[in-house]
């Protein structure tokens, strides 16, 4: 999929672990891992909003489009 989730980079910038982010966002570690590894097929606006709040960023900072 050409949409790439840049969760890793944002988490590194904020020095936040996946477990910590999962706690803050209210997602299971398994679901957040699906998002982080690029296996997710869709993201809910509510999830995106919660992640943006936790990582203090905008949706555009989390998503990238790599044309294949």
């Amino acid at each position, binding site marked *: 999929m050409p949409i790439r989730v840049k969760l890793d980079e944002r988490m590194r910038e904020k020095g936040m672990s996946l477990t910590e982010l999962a706690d803050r966002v209210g997602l299971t570690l398994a*679901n957040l891992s*699906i*998002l982080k590894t690029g*296996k*997710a*097929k*869709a*993201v*809910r606006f509510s*999830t995106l909003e919660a992640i943006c709040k936790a990582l203090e960023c905008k949706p555009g900072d989390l998503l990238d489009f790599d044309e294949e």
Partner: protein
Amino acid sequence: MKQSSLSLRVLKLVLTVCWWGSVIMAVLVPLALVYAASSSGNPKSDWEFSYTGYASGIDTSSLSAVDRDGREGRVEFNEGTWVQVFYPIETSAGRVKLVLLIAVVSGVVLAFFLVFIKQLKDILDTVSEGDPFVEVNAGRVRLIGVLLIVGTFGQALLRLVVSGYADSSLRTTGFQLDGNFEMNFMQLIAGVSVLVLSEVFRLGTKMREEQELTV
């Protein structure tokens, strides 16, 4: 989630019986044919070969039916009917030919049936495991639909070939033989319906996958 409802257990039992019945037939039929072929030299055995044809225009003048008032009615066949015409097989070569013909036809029918039952068994196994909505099952349902449709056409074609062969081989008196292409439309509709359901199933499994991978 493990399912063990009565209907599921009954279905599993029925399919298991069908499966092992077919497997046993697949073993016994060749053995019976080998035995038949080996005893084909026995002059005492009465071997017969039958032509199967589709008869119409049957002369019913010798047939009669009398009602309770003693009146004699005219007998007619509404439409044609399947008939068999038997001939004795006297040579060993003819018997071996018949055995080979039976071997080929029963082999194809058994293989067809085994593949069909295997798909149903595999689908039921996924139901028992609690997760039947997987893409591989959509493929299995589609294969069942294809087998039903192919079976319908195969059966009709076989009937046409068999009745056409009888028509071209026999000279008849009192009735006439014709090639007959008789298709089981209910079976065809069932096959098409199963194909439609398989597409619904395929889309359903995709939707579920997307739903599961929505974060």
